[in-house]
């Protein structure tokens, strides 16, 4: 984008967060449209029958393709995926949002630990507002 970001919309400084801005939209378009296609039961059956063949219909990069096939949840976000879309794959796999949450933490966090963190009141906001403030833990 050849444009100046309004200072109040500096998302770059927020840690561990992939904002759905124009660049993200453009990078993730094909990936997210694939995810959305799983709203349809017929499409889910096709994906189930042959994942690799099914996703070949969509305009996705090799890295996006692998991230989907390997269920690299964090990688999908980094490659333009949006959680509301990529969660369609999690639903397909029978995973819930906390299971996916643990996998996206990028620290090898176990589901049980993520679950306990939520029961304890969630990931603390203190230390997690700005990059470099902490380890997002």
């Amino acid at each position, binding site marked *: 984008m050849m444009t100046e970001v309004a200072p109040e*919309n500096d998302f770059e400084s927020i840690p561990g967060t992939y904002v759905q801005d124009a660049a993200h939209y453009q990078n993730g378009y094909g990936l997210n449209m694939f995810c959305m296609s799983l709203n349809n039961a017929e499409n889910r059956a096709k994906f189930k029958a042959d994942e690799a063949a099914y996703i070949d219909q969509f305009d996705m990069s090799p890295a996006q393709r692998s991230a989907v096939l390997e269920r690299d949840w964090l990688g999908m976000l980094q490659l333009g995926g949006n959680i509301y879309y990529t969660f369609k794959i999690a639903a397909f796999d029978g995973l819930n949002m*906390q299971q996916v949450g643990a996998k996206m933490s990028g620290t090898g966090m176990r589901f049980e630990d993520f679950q306990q963190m939520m029961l304890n009141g969630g*990931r603390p906001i203190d230390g997690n507002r700005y990059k470099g403030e902490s380890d997002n833990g």
Partner: protein
Amino acid sequence: MAKVFSGMGTSHIPAVGAAIDHGKQGEDYWQGYFKGLEPARAWHAQNRPDVVIIVYNDHASAFSLEQISTFTIGVSDKFLPADEGYGPRKVPVVQGHPALAWHLVESLVLDEFDMAISNNMPVDHGLTVPLSVAYDAPAEWPVKVIPLCVNVIQYPQPTAKRCHDLGVAIRKAIHSYGEDINVSIWGTGGLSHQLQGERAGVINSDFDTVFMDNLVNDPIANTKLTHADFIREAGSEGIEMIMWNIMRGAMAPKVEELYRFYHVPVSNTAYGLQILKDSE
């Protein structure tokens, strides 16, 4: 003439719908949550409007990245539960109110809100979970519904101020509708939550509390929050809170808070509920 009957803010967490649909309300995890809903449900049982405008967002169910509208009003007479990836929720079909919906469209566009109109809009958990929150699992929903779908996913979302102003214009539109009916408005989504990334699971109860306090006493304060404020403080999906501003804008300048319930966690989210009524 029509009048504004009540306002409600509520999160629309899909896990709440799943808990109700699969009879889990009695489980340890859910008992405290559903107990907190009881006073709200008792109030709703006694205080039933004719129509509810449900301000919600679609979660890649009816609308994709192909076509994103800032504000969309559903003008159909019915809205089917959407297949979000695991089959549609087995809840009643939502009955619309085309006459009031079209009146809203006319009034809002003439008031310089650039609305989109949809006649074919399956509704996902963003709309149906709030109905379950208020009415549990009836054979038919006891109210007619006008869906008002807001883009909260793609930056740039409408500003917090624009959302409040839309609410003010909705109030004006309701008050110029010729039939004597009661219209409620619900703002849904939030409160603080981040579903994605290394920061997934972030919760900011202080921010949520100040936001709900301001909705009662100082709604203009909530219109000054920027996109980055919401995303940084309330998590990337916490920005759904802008939809509560639309509800609040449609209420009188002074309101009474009839009930508040706040519960952490529900799934990865801070659950909030607030029932408001215009002050006399």
